[in-house]
Structures are given as structure tokens and as C-alpha cells.
């Protein structure tokens, strides 16, 4: 197996007397999609926030390209090449796609007092990047508010990729989407992976995970329940692992096996 881009080793995170993560190990290699599954409260969010520099781990090591890393802020992690697309997307509906795409990292031309936003270059790059992702904008000045949820996800992913992400963390990108939009986003994940970026795909939908995932790690109550490769695990086994097995089997029988 190739070397992981990022390796999280026995990460622990305590909030006061609450142990949110109790020794979670996780890694991502280039060009793979590693799914992180778990039910609500399993510690998925805490874990990716630790990975993206929002939280500092209480104990454990983060190795990024074989170097020990200590992220002080999300900005540090971003600069190292870890991009996170959160559920709220960090997009502003009233602003154009181009302006959102380059928000905080605007291309400029000219010098000194004449240094200005290079609107033409920005529009061209944005149109091109979006076309690569399979979205045809009406124009670079189209407002993000007019895009569908799936398209917004794609803009956010395209932005992260364009700005040189090596690891892309997607926080439940499909949770609020319809069937068609979900498949678009999954197709986008596939494209991104083919470019050699390591994708961390957080979800609690087993079918979405199995559609694109190469490896699957299940979190439960702050611990990993193990990592499985594609083909080594059936959807039912994965589903059971996520929900803590026993209880779900009982629930399922009472609901007639429809979950």
C-alpha cells in the first residue's frame, strides 16, 4: 500500500470530563476515498475538526506527509493542504459564483495603489473549473443563491481542489440532497479522487459510502470499530457496525426490516 498523506495516530480529545475521542487512528492515501461512518454522537465531527485544525487533540499524533504537525488554526491546516467542505459550505448566496470561488484568495493584477481584483482572470478560471466539474454556469456573475444544493457542494469542492488541497474532507455532503443531486456529488468525489487527492467522506448513509468508498472506518462512542476495504464487507455488516449491531437488529425486526 502507498504511504498515507495524513496519518492520525491514537487521537484523543476530551472536553472537560467528556471523552469525545478515545484513541482513534485513521489515515488517507493519495487517490483514495476513505469513508468515515458513524451514527450521531459517534465523534465524527470532533474527529474531522481535529484533522482540519479547529480542535487540538488532547493526546495522539498527526503526521502529515511523514512530518509531525501541530495545527493552531484551520488556516494552518488549509495551508498545509487539508481542505474541509463543511455542511454550511462557507458560501454566500448573494455573491456571484466567481466571487465566492475566490473569496479570501482573490487574484490581483497591477502593483501598489493600482493593485486590483483581476475580475477577468477570476471569471475565466471559475468558469473553466466549474465546467471540469460538469456545471455550466449562466455566467461568472451568477449568484450562488441560484444554484441547487448539489451544485453548491460542487462549487465548494472545485474551490478546494483548485487551491491545491491534498486531502479533502467532506462533512456529510449528501445528507440534505435529493437522489439526482446526490449522484452528482458522488460523481464529483470520483473525479477528485482520480486527480490523486485523498478524500475523507463523512456520512451516515451506508449506500452513499459504498458507492464511492475504497475503505470504510466506523466510529462508535469515540472509538474505531475497525477499518474494512471495499469488497471485504457487505452493506448489512456495515450498517450493523454503525448502529452498534445488536440494538439495531432488534429495532429492525420490530419495524419489519425496512431500515
Amino acid at each position, binding site marked *: 500500500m502507498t504511504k498515507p498523506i495524513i496519518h492520525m495516530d491514537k487521537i484523543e480529545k476530551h472536553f472537560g470530563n467528556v471523552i469525545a475521542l478515545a484513541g482513534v487512528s485513521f489515515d488517507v492515501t493519495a487517490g483514495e476515498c476513505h469513508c468515515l461512518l458513524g451514527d450521531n454522537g459517534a465523534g465524527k465531527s470532533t474527529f474531522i475538526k481535529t484533522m482540519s485544525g479547529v480542535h487540538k487533540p488532547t493526546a495522539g499524533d498527526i503526521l502529515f506527509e511523514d512530518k509531525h504537525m501541530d495545527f493552531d488554526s*484551520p*488556516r494552518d491546516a*488549509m495551508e498545509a493542504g487539508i481542505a474541509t467542505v*463543511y455542511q*454550511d*459550505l*462557507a*458560501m*454566500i*448566496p*448573494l*455573491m456571484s459564483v466567481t*466571487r465566492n470561488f*475566490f*473569496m*479570501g*484568495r*482573490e487574484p*490581483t493584477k497591477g502593483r501598489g495603489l493600482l*493593485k*486590483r*481584483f483581476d*475580475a477577468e482572470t477570476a471569471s475565466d478560471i471559475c468558469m473553466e473549473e466549474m*465546467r*471540469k*466539474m*460538469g*456545471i*455550466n454556469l*449562466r455566467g461568472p456573475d451568477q*449568484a450562488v*443563491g*441560484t444554484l441547487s444544493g448539489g451544485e453548491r457542494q460542487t462549487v465548494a469542492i472545485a474551490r478546494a481542489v483548485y487551491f491545491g488541497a491534498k486531502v479533502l474532507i467532506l462533512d456529510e455532503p449528501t445528507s440534505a440532497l435529493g437522489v439526482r443531486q446526490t449522484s452528482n456529488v458522488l*460523481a464529483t468525489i*470520483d*473525479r477528485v479522487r*482520480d486527480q490523486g487527492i485523498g478524500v475523507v467522506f463523512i456520512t451516515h448513509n451506508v449506500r452513499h459510502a459504498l458507492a464511492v468508498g475504497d475503505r470504510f472506518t466506523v466510529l462508535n462512542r469515540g472509538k474505531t470499530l475497525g477499518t474494512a476495504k471495499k469488497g471485504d464487507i457487505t452493506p448489512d455488516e456495515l450498517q450493523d457496525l454503525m448502529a452498534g449491531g445488536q440494538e439495531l437488529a432488534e429495532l429492525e425486526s420490530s419495524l419489519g426490516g425496512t431500515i
Partner: protein
Amino acid sequence: MSTTEPVMVDERIKQETFIAQLMKRPELGAIAGVVLVTIFFLLTADEAMFTLQGFMNFMTPAAQLGILAIGASLLMIGGEFDLSLGSMVAFAGLFFAACVVNFGTSLFVAIPATLLFAALVGAVNGQIVLRTGLPSFIVTLAFLFILRGLSLVGLKLATGGSTQLRGVRQAVENDPLTGFFSGDAFAGFFVRLAEMGWIDTFKNGTPKVKGVPVEILWFVVLALLATYILLRTPAGNWIFASGGDANAASNSGVPVRKVKIALFMVTACCAALLAIIQVIDAGSTDARRGFQKEFEAIIAAVIGGCLLTGGYGSAIGAFFGATIFGMVVIGLTYTNFDQDWFQVFLGGMLLLAVLFNNMIRKRVTGER
């Protein structure tokens, strides 16, 4: 790679007409307003209103309000309010007048000092808003009263008990900078125009309009500068982003706090600039200077297309918003209407503008 090659043209997208694109501009409402008001006064007002002299007459108050409105619109796009603007005019006026009268400094010192002082007060406003997380509406409402009160107290200290500080004109009369902040610009050019018979003159040959009042020039320059910053610099993008969603903006690496504090400082400086112009022009300052101007400035910004929730608007819109204001306040004197209709008109205009802007925003964001 994926199976389908992306298509270049999406058949579901209709070509937009030029009109439809125009409809999305934030300043459209204000421009439509200017056209309506112009038609109204063309029908009802004395024709003197639309001579060169009439134009300067209504553009002067428009410019004075506009200097504030442009600052207010930038701040509103950045997602904050400043209700202390009007009081800031009085407070900065006091500071400026005290500099030149009580301390006898030249304008070279007094003007930068006044702007710096205003920026400092703006920064305090901004710091309190950002640190406490209180709405800027409340914080600046407090400063509306604090600054107004301080202006009164300060005036009494500076004058020994009066609420009017006189003697500014004598103090700055021969200062080389005075011409930039008061009187008319391009006087020589207007004399030339008069000689060539292109503009109206008095019987003795001097032009009826001596030049362009300097505040109009400041107004135009500020509007252009603000528009350039908003549309053509990274800072402009940051202003829209900070106002649109501060959290999303800072997640994307926009220095939201710095942007907002800078905007509070710029807005306060606009108030100080107006104070300097007005105080030199009047030759004195008093505690009622700038009274209720904060509301008029915000109204002009809203007519100009700024959303109360931030993240959307334009400085050119505020320019036309202030122009409408000037046309109405002066235009009514050219008609047979009672001038006090002005306030009714202003309120009505505000209401219409907000309704119109909400409609525009829905078109832009495609809300359904």
C-alpha cells in the same frame, strides 16, 4: 474519469435579455427614483430648478448627505450600522473647530488630526461591536447619545459656557488648504465659460454660478473611489463577504474583524470630512450639527439598494439616493407645495425602495 464529457451549452438556460440583466443591478431602484423625481419636478417646478444654478443648488445638500451616505452604504454592505454618524459630525466638528480656534493650529495639522480622531472613535465603535457581539444597532445607538452629549459638554468647555464655537472663518481664512474644503472649484473655468457666453451671467458679466461647490467634487470622488474598491479590489470582495455571512467569510480566510473595524473607521472619517466642510463653510460649529443625519444617510443607502441584512448594495446607488434627497428638499421650494411634504416624501420613498429592493434580491438569488 467520469463517463460523460461535460456539455458546453445547457439547453435549460434561456438567454437573458439586456433589460433582465439590468434589473439585477442594486442601484437600479435609485436610478429609477432619480428619473421619477426629475419627471415630477419637470412637471411641477419652476424651470429655474433645471438651470445650471438650480442644479448646483440641489446638488450641494445632496453632496453633503452623500458623503455620509457613501460611508454608511459601505458599512451596511459590510453588515453593520452606524447610528452615531450624525453625532459624529457634531463631535468631529467640535474637535476641528477647537483645533483651529482654541489651539490655533493650521489646517495641515487640524484636518489630519480630526480625521485620525474620528477614525479612533470609529474603531472604538467597531471594537465594542465585535468584542461584545452585540448588534451594531445598539452599540452605535448608545454612541449617538454619548457623542451628542460629549459635543455639548465639550462646546461649553471650549467656549466657556456657550453651545456655539465661532471664529473658524477668521482662523482659516488665509490657510492654503481652505480652498479644498470650502467655496467653489474651477472658478477660472466658469469665468471663461461666461466670457464665451456659454453660461448665464449677471449684468456685470460675472457668471451666476461661480464654480462647482467643493463638496460636490468630494461627493463624486468618494462615490467613484468606493465603487472602485467594492467592485475591483480584493477588499471589496471581503466587504461583500463579511456582510453576506461573516462566519462563511472567515472560514474562507477573509479577515472579517479587520474589514469591519476598517469600515467603522471609514464611516466615521466620512462624518469628519463633512464636519470639516460644514464648519469651514459656516465659520462656526454648534451641538446640533448633523442632527438626525444618520437616518437620512441610511435612507439614502437603502434607496441606493443596500440590504439591511448586509452583503448587497452599491456606492453608486447611495450616490443616486442622496441625489434624490437633494432634489426633493430643494425642488419643493421651486414648486407651490408646502416644503414640509419633504418628510412625508422621504418616508414614502424609503418604504418603496425597500419593497423594490426585496424584489430585486429575489431575482438575483433566484428565490422561489
